[in-house]
């Protein structure tokens, strides 16, 4: 008995749901960014799993994972920069106080 595709998919699904819960629930914007990283990682697991077990199993899934990692790194860099700018101006990084475009 070896590891099947559905076990990898289930691990990725649980990881995605935990990340989604954190992104919706947490107040600290750094933790929200980390939760988004968690969701992207779950998708990466799916891509690599399908690059081994999929119908057209090829190395393309791993290449797409590398591109996803690049975009995630760029997103985190810009996100942290925005948070630092906001902390300087508003003295808070809580997401429920980011409402200056709503008023």
């Amino acid at each position: 008995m070896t590891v099947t595709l559905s076990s990898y998919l289930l691990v990725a699904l649980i990881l995605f749901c935990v990340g989604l819960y954190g992104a919706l629930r947490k107040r600290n914007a750094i933790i929200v960014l980390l939760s988004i990283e968690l969701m992207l990682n779950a998708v990466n697991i799916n891509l690599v799993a399908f690059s081994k077990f999929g119908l057209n199993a090829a190395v393309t899934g791993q290449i797409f994972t590398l591109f996803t990692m690049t975009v995630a790194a760029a997103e985190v860099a810009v996100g942290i920069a925005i948070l630092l700018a906001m902390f300087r101006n508003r003295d808070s990084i809580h997401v429920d106080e980011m409402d200056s475009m709503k008023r």
Partner: protein
Amino acid sequence: MDASLIIFFLLGFLTIGGAVFMISFTKVAHMVISIGVTFISIAGLFVLLEAEFVAVSQILVYSGAISILMLFGIMLTKHDASEDEPSKAQPFWLTWIFVAGLFLIVAYGIYSTNWNVLPPRQLDPNVSNVKEIGVEVFTNFVVPFELVSVLLLVALVGAIIMAKKEDKD
């Protein structure tokens, strides 16, 4: 029951455990440490899936760069920050029902599909994973590869401009 199954259970347990601890810890610095465990375990899962280059990139980018960047973000904002009370934008049960519903629907989809149509991909023992990825990137994915370098440059410049102190003029 072979060794890969035991390793898979161990890595999956560490992955999910790190994520759940990340959600349940109260101190922000502890959260970043526990998500580092998750990132390293995901790299282990990639090794188990015979994607060694992706696993090394995962350790370099996620548990190296992104965790340290998050720690810098915490140190530069409120370094003793703690997640005392959750947000009151929406009630607790609404988020819970949304996430649980998504989980149940997708889990039903995973388990009602017959995945075992084809055997897993057989690797050529003479070609390494890195060489395979390199050949594929520089034959079929040249344009995305170059575009990603432009994206990284734009993100770098944008992050510096966003984070630097604004002049008073």
